[in-house]
């Protein structure tokens, strides 16, 4: 599915916190959004996924203004896990799938969720809980995935597994992915395009390697320099 953002503008107390124009997300693209805290990344994603409707916007989904609820899955920043078992939580977004079918999914094995499949979610660790939320979002393989920091609580091994799954979904099934991350190197590993956001605006957009190595915008330079200094 193609997503075309003609214009998105959100104002709180007369202050514009998000102003994005003319942005296309072609079908099968993998876009990563990076930027400092408060840049408007999550707000933008919430508007794309229709979770935030209190704004001015003109977004076309496959050329239409109607939001295709059944075509898009979103994993919000702090995705809620219900006081149910892991299997039951996974079936919340996929009610046509039985518990047995959930267990037989390759995804469960890849994410090491089989040993905890019958545990209730409040007893899981932060990383395990995020793996369940991630699995729940990708399980139904809808044409578009919107993810807000889906691996922020996971260890390196689990992060790598999730990245592998996302690449498979994108490359093998052509699923359009838009994902927020605070880790530019993750963007380099996965994305076909990077958007750098700052103060509610997209300040850089393009090839991940080019942007990470040689950003043109001063704020983007400062953000990436700061990140490099903390990760050397």
């Amino acid at each position, binding site marked *: 599915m193609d997503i075309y953002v003609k214009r998105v503008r959100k104002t709180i107390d007369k202050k514009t916190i998000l102003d994005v124009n003319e942005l296309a997300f072609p079908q099968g693209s993998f876009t990563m959004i990076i930027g400092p805290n408060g840049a408007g990344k999550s707000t933008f994603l919430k508007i794309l996924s229709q*979770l935030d409707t209190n704004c001015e916007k003109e977004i076309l989904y496959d050329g239409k203004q109607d939001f295709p*609820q059944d075509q898009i*899955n979103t994993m919000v920043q702090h995705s*809620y896990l219900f006081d149910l078992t892991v299997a039951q939580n996974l079936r919340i977004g996929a009610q046509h799938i039985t518990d047995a079918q959930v267990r037989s999914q390759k995804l469960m094995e890849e994410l090491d969720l089989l040993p905890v499949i019958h545990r209730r979610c409040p007893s899981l660790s932060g990383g395990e809980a995020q793996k369940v939320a991630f699995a729940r979002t990708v399980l139904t393989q809808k044409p578009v995935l919107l993810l807000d920091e889906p691996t922020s609580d996971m260890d390196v091994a689990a992060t790598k597994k999730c990245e592998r799954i996302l690449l498979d979904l994108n490359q093998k099934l052509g699923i359009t992915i838009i994902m927020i991350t605070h880790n530019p190197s993750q963007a380099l590993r996965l994305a076909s395009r990077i958007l750098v956001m700052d103060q509610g605006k997209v300040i850089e957009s393009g090839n991940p390697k080019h942007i990470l190595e040689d950003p043109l915008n001063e704020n983007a330079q400062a953000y990436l320099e700061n990140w490099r200094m903390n990760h050397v």
Partner: protein
Amino acid sequence: MEGLREGMIEAIDLILRFDPEILKIIGLTLLVTLSSTFIAAWIAITLGTVIASTSFRAKRLVVRTLNALMGLPPVVAGLVVYLVLTRKGPLGSFELLYTVPAMIIAQVLIVTPIITSLTISGIHGKINAIRDTCKGLGLSFTQTMKLVLYECRYTTFSAVAAGFGRAIAEVGAIMMVGGNIQFKTRVLTTAIVLETGKGNYGKALALGIILLLISFTINWGINLLQERGTDGHLRKTSS
């Protein structure tokens, strides 16, 4: 202490003798209280869930009004119901005044804001995260509401228990609209007022003890349900 002991003995005596008037009073008390709590809970949980889950312009005003109505004086509620049901009132033709339905209506009016307000407070802290998650997964409004109610079931139980507590202790409104008629609309609270007025302190105390026993038993039952839910959860999560 002596009076209390005598009251206790008289209470046991009244129950064991299967005094028809006392049994009728207990039956009516349970009928009025449980019916009004059930109806109020049905209205209030639906209303509370919808109010907590949706955004609208006057939401803050509605929530504040409901909070204020938690302290609605029962006599005022009784007066309103009385004026509506009296022969010259808008619903006078139904001839409900001094009947059990009138008492239930008055109690529903008193209890509904309590359960609604407590339901909203219980849901408030979780609703945004649940709503965003459900909407993100493409769930319908009804599916989301079911999950909200499931996730907030313990606080909702507590809200219903608080509503029941208010209903069973109520006297002013049901006295006004029920009339405290023997074998027809007399319940434990109105009977206690009557017996105290007549100077029958032993019988009043006996009725008070029965009222306390009913109230404690039902509240314990509700607490037990809550604890079982929590314990069951803990057992499953620790395994």
